[in-house]
């Protein structure tokens, strides 16, 4: 009932906007020149705190400075990012409601749960602001020095080596599934409910490894609380030049990244998307932004729309296959 009211009100607004545009002959370009004429909402589909929220706030702050209007963060958590993403997918495509999306909202969550939106078709890509590669970590004095050690141990004792994750469908879980599939080993996946309990259990030696995203593990590695075994990026990370890549370790096809991107609802006028993307590209080159992103283990993106337009569908297909092969099911 509620949905219906909202729907019709939005429909009416669209009609009004259409009449307005037709009647006064305002072109999209002119509209974009005035954009943003009022504050813009950046929907973060997570609660406040955490990587996605933090990146959203950082980018929002820079967009506010660059475009001269407030970009306000609105946390709409829940449903494995589905609630926030749905809200943006169904919002008016006028550039005033944007999504801080990525790995969960635009690839894995719609595959695991029943989503009311299409993760590709219902959004207009603006640009990516970063990727977070996987870092395989273990406790400091663990017997696993290399990826080979982990694989050998897992082959010797199938279903005994345990890896933790922050939940089903998290990058940590997907990494574990992809790795065990490629290495041909069986390990136990121990899911946690977000938060940091899995890290405590790793340091407390109840877990053997975690295929962590670099955003979570970078401070821990630098503080010497956990030890990195390998990274999933194509080349070694500047922060950890001594840690080999998984490609070097014999798994060139492994690729699971957390990723963060800005989306508008589908059918947002192209001039607006272009304007946002151009601004985002500028932001991604700012030294302080690059430094802050690197500081939390995020590899800065370019902010280019066409890059994101190619990246996201590939991700979706990759995880569709992985989830099917690994027989991870929900609902």
């Amino acid at each position, binding site marked *: 009932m509620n949905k219906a009211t909202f729907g019709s009100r939005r429909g009416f607004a669209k009609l009004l906007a259409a009449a307005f545009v037709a009647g006064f002959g305002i072109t999209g370009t002119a509209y974009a020149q005035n954009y943003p004429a009022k504050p813009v909402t950046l929907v973060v589909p997570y609660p406040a*705190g955490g990587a996605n929220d933090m990146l959203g706030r950082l980018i929002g702050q820079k967009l506010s400075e660059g475009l001269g209007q407030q970009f306000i963060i609105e946390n709409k958590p829940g449903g494995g990012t589905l609630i926030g993403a749905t809200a943006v997918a169904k919002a008016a495509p006028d550039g005033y409601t944007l999504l801080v999306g990525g790995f969960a909202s635009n690839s894995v969550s719609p595959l695991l749960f029943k989503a009311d939106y299409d993760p590709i078709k219902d959004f207009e890509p603006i640009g990516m602001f970063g990727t977070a590669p996987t870092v395989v970590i273990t406790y400091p004095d663990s017997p696993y020095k290399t990826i080979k050690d982990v694989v050998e141990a897992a082959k010797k004792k199938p279903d005994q080596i345990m890896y933790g994750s922050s939940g089903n469908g998290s990058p940590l879980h997907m990494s574990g599934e992809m790795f065990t599939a490629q290495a041909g080993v069986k390990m136990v996946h121990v*899911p946690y409910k977000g938060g940091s309990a899995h890290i405590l259990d790793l340091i407390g030696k109840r877990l053997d490894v975690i295929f962590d995203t670099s955003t979570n593990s970078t401070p821990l590695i630098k503080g010497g609380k956990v030890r990195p075994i390998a990274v999933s990026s194509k080349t070694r990370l500047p922060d950890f030049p001594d840690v080999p890549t998984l490609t070097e370790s014999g798994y060139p096809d492994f690729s699971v990244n957390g990723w963060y991107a800005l989306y508008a609802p589908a059918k947002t006028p192209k001039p607006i998307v272009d304007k946002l993307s151009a601004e985002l590209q500028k932001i991604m080159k700012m030294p302080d932004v690059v430094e802050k992103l690197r500081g939390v283990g995020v590899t800065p993106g370019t902010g280019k729309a066409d890059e994101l337009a190619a990246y996201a569908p590939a991700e979706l297909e990759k995880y569709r296959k992985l989830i099917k092969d690994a027989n991870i099911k929900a609902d």
Partner: protein
Amino acid sequence: MDFLHNLYIGFQTSLSLINLWYAFLGAMLGTLIGVLPGLGPIATIAMLLPSMYTLEPTSALIMLAGIYYGAQYGGSTTAILINVPGEASSVVTALDGYKMARKGRAGAALATAALGSFFAGTIGTMVVAAFAPPLTALAFEFGAPEYCALMFLGLVGAVVLASGSLAKALAMVVLGLLLGQINTDVITAVPRFSFGITELMDGINFVVIAMGVFSFGEIIANLGKPAEHRDVFIKKVTGLMPTKQDFKDSAPAALRGTILGCLLGVLPGAGPMLASFTSYSVEKKVAKNPGEFGQGAIQGVAGPEAANNAGAQTSFIPMLTLGIPTSAVMALMIGAMTLMGIQPGPQVMTTNPSLFWGLITSMWVGNLMLVILNLPLIGIWVKLLTVPYRFLFPAIMAFCAIGVYTLSNNTFDVYCAAAFAVLGFVFHKLGFEPAPLILGFILGPMMEENLRRALLMAHGDWSVFVTRPISATMIVVAVGLMIAITLPAISKKREEVFVEDE
């Protein structure tokens, strides 16, 4: 001594004039916003975060700490004045604090909460500075079996929270457990009892239930009475400050609460909340007149408030020693640090000692500011209660609705709270107390998650719960407590003591 030297570095930072000002500003903003029902520390900090980007990082963090404590204290204020617990730990405060308010002793309750918190905060700060490493080691001892056993113990203890019938308390615990089953199964990622509603996939928010059954239910019940009986609040206010006897009653309770809080606070997730519940149960057990609990016992405010605040203090320990955020508030603070260009993590202690110890000592400064700020404010808060009910209750409803909405910026939560309001009214009429329901609702899913994880990691071997010393001890205590509660002789005596005379 390292300990003293560290505190010295810290106070050098936090007692500078400018930082004291920010601590005060933070505590004031936190109190003002936190006192709006349902706006807890997280919403408050998230709201004020953008205004802090321009500040120097240390000052900003000190202000954040002030906001955090202010908002938390604001939550206790609403729990005491109008029976609106904004977070899990204030549910306990509401039990006796609200009863005190209705008896005209809101001032004493508020002052006790502030002073108890300050005392606990002082001890907590010293504990953080002196014993962070050993307490971190304690946190590591707690794996899934230990958490599961702790939750089990907590659930058994939940029954003690009620002052009425044992059977009704048990029924409420079970109902809480059932409501807690609405979520997504952690192990298999299957949504349970969500009926295809995306909002139910993460379960019902605790605040929604607490507001519905506590505040709204009470309001409906109040409106059901004839107008002349409706003004349940103060006709006469008997002193704004606690009496000598109050101090004598509440000091030992605050001390016990502080110890409990310091220990349990280290456990990520449920620490401070469990501490305040446990403190209440302990106080009720050791009290000379347990019958007063639930009727406005000052120990029931002092103990849990102290436990909660001490727990809030020591819950910073895992973050400080490991760089792991153990609660949403801390995650937000770490995010803020990052935005300000400080790389969070365990290395902050060595790379930026003045910031690190400044933050620790500023927690104490924040608590001090709260006392300075709130003791004079008590008079104003109490005045609020003399507002005629016909104006007060719509205001409470409106602010609660706003607060519930801000939980996840979703109207669904508001509708949910409305449903629980009706349920709360029914509970009120039938004499079912909501506190055990809340505890069952919070502990149930945590216990289930840890039970299943423990079994997953032990390859299905149930003996894991009794072969590990900590978990075995807690299970023994829980079983002992269960026997004590259910033994007919004791139970009979209990009924006599606890039966309500309303």
